C-alpha cells in the first residue's frame, strides 16, 4: 500500500521520524519526490491492521505541524 503526502503539508523530517517511531508496528519505505513524499507500507502488525496507516498519518501530521512551529 502506497500513500502520497503533499510536501506543502507534510515535512520529510516529520515523516521519517514517524517511520522510525512506527518501526515496531509497520515496515515502511519513505521516498521523497519533487512535490510529494511517498510512504510504502510493506507489512502491518496483524492485530492493528490497516488502522496503523491512519495512526501513522495522524502522527506524521502532528509532527509536521509541530516542526513548522
Amino acid at each position, binding site marked *: 500500500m502506497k500513500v*502520497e*503526502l*503533499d510536501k*506543502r*503539508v507534510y515535512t520529510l523530517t516529520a515523516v521519517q521520524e514517524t517511520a522510525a517511531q512506527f518501526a515496531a508496528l509497520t515496515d515502511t519505505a519513505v521516498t521523497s519526490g519533487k512535490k510529494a513524499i511517498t510512504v510504502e507500507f510493506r507489512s502491518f502488525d496483524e492485530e492493528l491492521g490497516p*488502522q496503523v496507516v*491512519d*495512526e501513522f*498519518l*495522524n502522527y506524521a*501530521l*502532528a509532527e509536521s*505541524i509541530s516542526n*513548522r512551529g
Partner: protein
Amino acid sequence: MATEKEILVNQKVYPLDVVFGAAFVNLDKCYVFIDKGEKNQWKVRLRGKPGCSAKEFNALVGEFENELLNQALRAQIAEKTQKVRDLIVHRALFSALPASDDLGLDDEVGDYLDDPLGIAIPWEEKFGKEEGSPEQAQKKEGSGEEDPS
C-alpha cells in the same frame, strides 16, 4: 454507516495554517489526512477512530468545520493586532532595562595615566634596595665607605 468524510476547503478563505490549527485540535478525536484538492482547495479527509458511532462522527465533522472558522478568525485578529502586540512587548522590554544612571558607565571614564593601585611604579622606586644585598655592598666598596663597626 461509514465514518469517513472528505471536506474541500478553500485556500483563500482558510490558509494552510488555519487548516493545521483545526486539524491539530481534532487529531486526538479522529484521523485527519490533508491533501491538495482541485483549484485552490485543500482536501481534508476525516475518519472516525474505532468505536466512533455515526452520530458521534457527524458531530466531530461539525466541530472540525467550526474549528476552521475559529482558527480563521484567530489568524485574522492576530494579523490585525500584530503591530499593537509588538509595541506592547517592546515597551515592556524597554521599561525592564535599568536607567542609564545605573549602568555605571560614568564610573569607568578616566585618564589612562591614572594609576591608583601603583602598578606602573618600578619595584626599586617603590620599596628601595635591601640593605646588605650584594649589589649594595659593591656600591659601598666602590665609593670607599667603611663599616663603622
